[in-house]
């Protein structure tokens, strides 16, 4: 029997039972659509993490506290015991030992209510230094950014993110106005240009910046174990991307010296390049994506069981037909191939519809909004390919047993069946 004839025979017998064929396919349709849809969300999250970090700044190195008990970079990202201080940031900025460092921004952050007139909003308050704009790629829209003088005098001044301005001031010009944070009045000296986008779901334009010294003394005092005023993070910008790895080592040396760590003591901080952070987050979102895919994959397996079930029924139902085909010269492998092709066609057609379904799910999801920011979805061709291949594979595996049963039927028994 020619392959083409097997294919036509299989397609014909599927089309004579259209409703059943469709219902049988449904498991695979749902499975493939779920795999593609869910994995597009996972891939979207991953793409978003990458682009978030690219927006943050270039050639950045992050220094975060780490107590020896809290191992792993991610635990430290969430925040540990403060071990970094403003002195560390100054040391990094002024060290001759660090030729590639272009800018250093110590950052401390907390959430608080900010009010003006009768309105108030809750937003991130960040204490930092003038280098912040350079390191994190912000630009001033009007007024000015905090100056070294503001730092030295612990001035009660703030610079507002674009979203804070819109939410709090509407059309009023904010520069020169006074806002209230934790019961103290701060003069608005500048407004940032909108940066757009969100970092890990938080808008990058929703922030209030104040001098780090003001933040430490007047808003949120926090001290390191050795009694210095703590900063939560230090972000360092390196002039040349080539120098990042070398600079990481140098920063570690400088900080170990500053912290007076002896040779057998572990670092009480972590120095991570932006790439490493992106890499870690990509790993996490990758695991998340695979997990989503695996959950969806279960429905593919269920779909495969559906195919096997219906194929078994179909073989029993068509016992006489199989007997007749054998009587007129069909070999075992002809029968085997016909039923395997039926299973393969079912799963192929099912996954075809499923791919369309997956695109629809992905599209609809990307139009949903959670917490004010759109969910990003990315349908990757490799996911589509794998989903289709796996479902056809599952179809073939599911069809194998029924097809073997059909092929093994004794023609005489089959002819007189029923």
């Amino acid at each position, binding site marked *: 029997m020619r392959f083409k004839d097997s294919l036509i*025979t299989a397609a014909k017998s599927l089309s004579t039972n259209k409703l059943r064929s469709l219902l049988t396919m449904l498991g695979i349709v749902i499975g493939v659509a779920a795999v593609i849809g869910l994995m597009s969300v996972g891939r979207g999250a991953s793409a978003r993490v990458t682009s978030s970090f690219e927006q943050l700044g270039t050639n950045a190195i992050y220094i975060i506290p780490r107590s020896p008990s809290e191992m792993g970079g991610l635990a430290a990202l969430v925040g540990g015991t403060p071990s970094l201080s403003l002195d560390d940031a100054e040391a990094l900025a002024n060290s001759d030992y660090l030729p590639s460092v272009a800018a250093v921004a110590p950052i401390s952050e907390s959430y608080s209510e900010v009010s003006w007139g009768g309105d108030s909003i809750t937003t991130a308050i960040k204490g930092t230094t003038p280098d912040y704009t350079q390191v994190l790629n912000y630009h001033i829209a009007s007024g000015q950014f905090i100056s070294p003088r503001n730092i030295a005098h612990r001035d009660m001044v703030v610079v507002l993110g674009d979203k804070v301005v819109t939410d709090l001031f509407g059309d009023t010009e904010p520069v020169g106005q006074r806002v209230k944070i934790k019961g103290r009045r701060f003069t608005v000296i500048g407004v940032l240009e909108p940066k757009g986008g969100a970092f890990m779901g938080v808008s990058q334009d929703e922030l209030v910046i104040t001098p780090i010294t003001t933040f430490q003394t007047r808003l949120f005092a926090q001290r390191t174990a050795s009694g210095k005023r703590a900063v939560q993070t230090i972000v360092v910008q390196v002039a040349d991307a080539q120098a990042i790895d070398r600079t990481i080592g140098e920063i570690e040396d400088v900080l170990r010296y500053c912290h007076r760590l002896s040779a057998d003591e572990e670092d009480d901080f972590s120095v991570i390049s932006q790439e490493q952070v992106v890499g870690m987050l990509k790993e996490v979102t990758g695991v998340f994506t695979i997990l989503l895919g695996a959950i969806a994959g279960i429905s593919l397996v269920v779909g495969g069981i559906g195919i096997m079930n219906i194929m078994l029924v179909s073989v029993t139902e068509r016992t006489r037909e199989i007997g007749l085909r*054998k*009587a*007129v*010269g*069909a070999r075992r492998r*002809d029968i085997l191939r016909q039923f395997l092709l039926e299973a393969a066609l079912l799963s192929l057609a099912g996954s075809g519809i499923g791919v369309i379904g997956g695109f629809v799910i992905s599209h609809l999801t990307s139009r949903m909004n959670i917490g004010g920011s759109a969910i990003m979805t990315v349908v990757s061709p490799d996911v589509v390919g794998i989903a289709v291949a796996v479902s056809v594979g599952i179809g073939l595996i599911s069809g194998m047993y029924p097809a073997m049963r059909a092929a093994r039927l004794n023609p*005489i028994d089959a002819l007189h069946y029923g």
Partner: protein
Amino acid sequence: MIKLENVTKVYQMGEIAVNALNGITLSVAKGEMLAIIGASGSGKSTLLNILGCLDKPTSGSYLFEGIDVGRLNDNQLAEMRNRKFGFVFQQFNLLPRATALYNVELPLVYSNVYHRRERAVEALEWVGLAGRANHKPTELSGGEQQRVAIARALVNNPSFILADEPTGNLDSKSTNDIMAVFQRLNREGRTVVIITHEADIASQAQRTIRLCDGRIADR
């Protein structure tokens, strides 16, 4: 030319062994029309199945045109069924959802020949059903269905036509039609073996053998 030598067939039904054939020795000459009669359970269907390579004998030898059928594997038996034999069944055994034409074409699908459609149309013409080519079996009378089945049996131009109670489900007029078709097949030089339990069907054959308890009874 078919030669059976002391053929037996034992079916194992659970723990009981059923001797369906108890040593059959039989020759069927080319161009012959042979009727096999016998009560139900006498082994006549088993004999036909063995003749048609649908089943293998438990012991004894079966030579078909000099080929030892007992030595053939499954694929070779399938090819024998496809090329050398045409089967006609009591229940017609047509594919219910396919047209008459496709039913006739079916054996050709398994023999990789060209001009399948033309050959199927020709076979349908031969049984006088060219006008019904696109009808489904359910739209045909019993006699017509059996003629489609005969067209299917002869489409691959086999030398043997094996019929198992071909008129068992037909009225007397259709029975006469079908028997006339078998006579015509035989006149064209094909060997026809018909199983029947009707004496007047058997009487149309040149030779009749009677089976009884798996043995050939007296002539």
